[in-house]
């Protein structure tokens, strides 16, 4: 166990995977000489050489498609797309090719590609660099979707994604790259496909993932000072969702707030609420609350950006509402 940043955890996992399996390589924009737009792959070019750390042209669709093709050809590519915003240029390859190939071929082929991308707001980089679109990918059969909200998961999800025979989309949170936490570089990592209880409590369930997880934990501490003990459930795997864990948490608390940085309409939180209603309606003692992003392209100015995305204060207020307070 050691202290490390989220960024270092991703790097450590990629280094471990590349050292252990010659089929693993990394490609993406500025992953090599630049060291990665968020410095995630810094030093890997020197360690593994240009054949395995490949700087690509600014052609998201084609380098993602090439990752898919290379996976079909027997490699284990890691495709880094700088942010989810740019991934829309590769949506055709991810949705029409990676996700369909196995079923459309009658099970003849699988596509073991790991597609990593940063997501989320909070750095004042405005609308075209700040969106959260995890819910789009989480709605596509044929994909598996992970979102890392802790330092350990940032490492474990890279390794679990590479071990998986199917296309995996891994969301890393832009504002968490510098976050420090405990990192066990020898830990088993196949637990990432299931939700995890990050804090126990009996009064209300706060369900979250990725960028919103640290805020949600902070909100739980604030609630605790008011005598409300919240359970925090980290979804971790956004497709498939862990239905059992969702039902289990409301069976304990009977109240839920779902926190998610995607836009309110059509949010991933909306899907979670639907599943709670379908699977555990009679367990609920209060309407389920959602804390999502306000329906606006993320603005530049700090006070506007802060107001657009989920905040500790909004989570606390929503939790109180489920308890009939405020």
């Amino acid at each position, binding site marked *: 166990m050691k202290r490390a940043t989220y960024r270092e955890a991703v790097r450590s996992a990629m280094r471990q995977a590349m050292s252990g399996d010659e*089929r693993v*390589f990394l490609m993406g924009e500025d992953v090599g000489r630049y060291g990665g737009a968020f410095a995630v792959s810094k030093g890997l070019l020197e360690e593994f050489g240009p*054949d395995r750390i*490949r700087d*690509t*042209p600014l*052609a998201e*669709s*084609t*380098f*993602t*498609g*090439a*990752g*898919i*093709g*290379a*996976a*079909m*050809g*027997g*490699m284990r*590519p890691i495709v880094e797309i700088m942010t989810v915003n740019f991934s829309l240029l590769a949506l*055709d*390859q991810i949705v*029409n*090719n990676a996700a369909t*190939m*196995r*079923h*459309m*071929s*009658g*099970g*003849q*082929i*699988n596509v073991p590609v790991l597609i990593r991308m940063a997501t989320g707001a909070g750095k004042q980089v405005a609308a075209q660099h700040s969106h959260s679109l995890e819910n789009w990918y989480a709605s596509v*059969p*044929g994909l*598996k979707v992970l979102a890392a909200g802790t330092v350990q998961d940032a490492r474990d999800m890279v390794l679990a994604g590479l071990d*998986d*025979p*199917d296309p995996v989309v891994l969301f890393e949170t832009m504002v968490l790259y510098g976050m420090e936490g405990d990192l066990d570089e020898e830990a088993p990592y*196949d637990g990432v*496909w*299931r939700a995890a209880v990050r804090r126990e409590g009996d009064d209300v369930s706060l369900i979250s993932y990725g960028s919103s997880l640290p805020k949600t934990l902070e909100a739980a501490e604030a609630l605790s000072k008011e005598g409300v003990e919240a359970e925090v459930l980290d979804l971790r*795997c956004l497709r*498939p969702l862990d239905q059992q864990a969702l039902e289990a948490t409301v069976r304990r608390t009977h109240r839920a707030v779902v926190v998610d940085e995607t836009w309110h309409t059509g949010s991933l939180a909306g899907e979670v609420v639907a599943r709670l209603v379908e699977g555990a309606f009679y367990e609920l003692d209060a309407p389920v609350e959602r804390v999502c992003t306000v329906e606006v392209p993320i603005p530049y100015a700090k006070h506007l950006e802060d107001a657009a995305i989920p905040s500790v204060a909004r989570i606390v207020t929503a939790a109180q509402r489920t308890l009939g307070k405020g």
Partner: protein
Amino acid sequence: MSSSAPSDRSHARTLLHQMLRIRRLEEKCAEVYTQGKIRGFLHLYIGEEAVAVGAIGALEDEDAIVATYREHGHALMRGVPMGAVMAEMYGKANGCSRGRGGSMHLFAVDRHFYGGHAIVGGGLPIAVGLALADEMLGRRRVTACFFGDGATDEGEFHEALNLAALWKLPVLFLCENNGYAMGTALDRHEADVELIHKPAAYGIPAEKVDGMDVVAVERTVRYEAETVREQGTPRFVELNTYRFRAHSMFDAELYRDKREVEEHKKRDPIALFTARCREEGLLDDEALEAIEKEVAEEVRAAVEEAEAGEIEPLATLASDVVSREVP
């Protein structure tokens, strides 16, 4: 222009036999489509057979193929059994994609046939990736990537050519130029109709060949594929051809003159090749009759196999969406 001459009797027979297999299978497809046995999109290759026959005949068996949604001929040429192709169009469990793909998504990965792809241009990055895997794993094979003139409009076309050239990957880009992007004529969808100017912009050597001349296609693609194999870098061939039938079964062909179609039919690749073989004394009536008979029997058996095929049980609806459920 006539067709070039094949090298000998056996060569003549092989080429004609393969072209006729595609032609007669597709004529039967059109017939059973009208009976409602095949549904969805059905894109016929009739008129373009010399391209798949010449090009795939010139490849090695281990070479990879990425094709488009007009790929019945390519699948047959790669050795996918005609019965499995027909059964797929019938949506049956004995189809080559177990009824999941249909006409547009024939797959035979064991024959390195990586599918029919129906997003125009979407197969090009896949082909580049397959070639990248070959290069990284030290496999000396060529990836042949088929696409139409319409694909050259797409951003992915330009991105894929650039990446293949930049990373020096063994891809043979085969542009089946039939003059139309669905119903839009080449000069209405391309600012520069000289398609080989485009690979030139990425430093990729390119040449054009008469796609109605099966021997010329074979000769050209053999040379180009061998060069790709030897040098490990991409090359490009434009194959000029023409689609005699509608784009799909839903197409009323309002965008082209019937006289234009009739004019092109004078250069039917099968008729041209047959005439040349007769002139050269390589095929006589008896031989032609024997080939037709053999093909008719194969088509008949393929239909029978498709008709007799089971449908996939509904219980398997969601199978093979992923290859492993999460732990």
